[in-house]
């Protein structure tokens, strides 16, 4: 945790571009210049940006698989326990562990937990809900990020980060505007 004295003044430096190609070029240039803590902000998901920033390692599928297995085992286990142990009910002499009859609820249990894990896991991995974030301090970001702006941020925890030179670097990429993102 950063205390109030150690918190860096800047979250990073942000450059705005007109279209995805310019953004992709800028990401390439920033990576070539040795920056590693980069994030891009685009009004819609762009596969090539994921490629450029190497964002294809989501942990979500494993989380969902785990939750689905827990859901299935949990519901089946409960149905077994309720029907065969806690409240055994003899129906037409059929076995107490009439497992085929437990399958529909088991299946729904898997989907229920998997689906919730997909949604909540996405929020968790993204650090949401988080109503405020430094990037919102940039006026053009608020106006254009969800419309037609393509933004690249070099974040201040990048080992090569130092405000003025990053600014000069980004200005060399012909952006619309470069802004320091204050914390």
């Amino acid at each position, binding site marked *: 945790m950063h205390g109030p004295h150690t918190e860096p003044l800047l979250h990073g430096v942000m450059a705005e571009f007109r*279209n995805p190609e310019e953004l992709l070029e800028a990401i390439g240039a920033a990576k070539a210049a040795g920056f590693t803590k980069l994030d891009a902000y685009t009004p819609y998901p762009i596969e090539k940006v994921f490629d450029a920033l190497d964002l294809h390692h989501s942990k979500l599928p494993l989380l969902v698989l785990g939750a689905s297995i827990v859901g299935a085992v949990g519901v089946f286990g409960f149905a077994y326990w309720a029907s065969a142990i806690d409240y055994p009910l003899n129906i037409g002499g059929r076995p107490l562990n009439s497992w085929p009859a437990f399958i529909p609820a088991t299946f729904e249990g898997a989907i229920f937990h998997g*689906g919730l894990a997909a949604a909540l896991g996405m929020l968790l991995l993204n650090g949401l809900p988080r109503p405020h974030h430094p990037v919102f301090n940039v006026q053009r970001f608020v106006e254009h990020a969800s419309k037609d702006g393509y933004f690249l941020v070099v974040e201040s925890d990048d080992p090569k980060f130092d405000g003025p030179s990053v600014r000069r670097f980004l200005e060399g990429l012909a952006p619309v505007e470069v802004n320091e993102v204050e914390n």
Partner: protein
Amino acid sequence: MTGIGIWGNNIPVGWGWDIVCFVWWIGIGHAGTLISAILLLLRQSWRNSINRFAEAMTVFAVACAGMYPILHLGRPWLPYWLLPLPGTLNMWPNFRSPLIWDVFAVSTYATISIVFWYVGMLPDLATLRDHAKAKVARFAYGMAALGWRNSSRHWANYEMASLLLAGLSTPLVLSVHSIVSFDFSVGIVPGWHTTVFPPYFVAGAVFAGFAMVLTLVLPLRPLFKLKDFITERHLQNMAKVMLTTGLIVAYGYVLEIWAAFYSGNEFEIFMVLNRFTGPYAVQYWLLILCNILVPQLLWFRQVRSNVWALWVIAMFINVGMWLERFVIIVVSLSRDYVPSNWAMYHGTKWDIAVFAGTIGLFLTLLLLFIRFLPALNMFEMRVLTPEAKKAHGEEK
């Protein structure tokens, strides 16, 4: 007479309009999931402009469907008794009963549909937050958007979540109507106990659902000037899905008749003849007219591109699918094994009133949705802009 006594239900027809309308509403919801999940997995990008609307329709249709089992309990303040909760009763629900499967299926379906819908809306809620002028609106959309900021790191997880939710919703939607059909097919009532029920119910659900999407979308399209988003191609495709699923349903009807005669069982054969010529023959033949004969017009391109014709055909299907459930349920229950047990069933004005109430609930929720929430998927529409197409150029 109090409680559900004011409905037309009797013994032997313990289920009437209530379950007819329940199945009808659930079926309508299924087209929404089909459009949002199955067409996503099949990479049918034409769905992008109608998927949000279709998902909303799913959520509201399931809400209407949910009213019926809760009201049918007779004590609508105790629906949690359906769930396996520890309580003073010291009992658990019977996991061998299709009715408890239904509770699990429908509650899972409702939950996952709401989650899918909400997750899909997150980026658009953020857009509304960024562009809202009024302070109240900015605050409300800001809270709802959970701080979404269009970061690529977020988008990557988001796209994965959408894909996973679509992957989970696809078997879910197939399971829900299969389980609804188990309510009938696990029973030994003539006309219910057949293996064709699950696929036949699922196809019927999609058939009815697409009819409802068209019923709603056709008037909204000129009203909200959406013709550039919901195009001729959408209407064509939806009509084709309706035609296809309609034919599967027709196959189901034929197979029901065949199975009855093939079984050689006198009760099954009687049930079929009773459908053809019995006291509810009018409903049966109307159902054949609405669900099999009228939709054949969709073979013609001229009909598929005529919005008025499409709307009228969709209304026929809405009515036909309601009649289908009525015929399946009431004809079989009112004439089962022992003639001394037979009784006629008629819905009362209260059955009609409850049904009208659910339609009112549905339309109210739908209009509130269109007024306050992003009814079109904005961020997926942005993918259709020229600069976005260039960025995606090599993939498509």
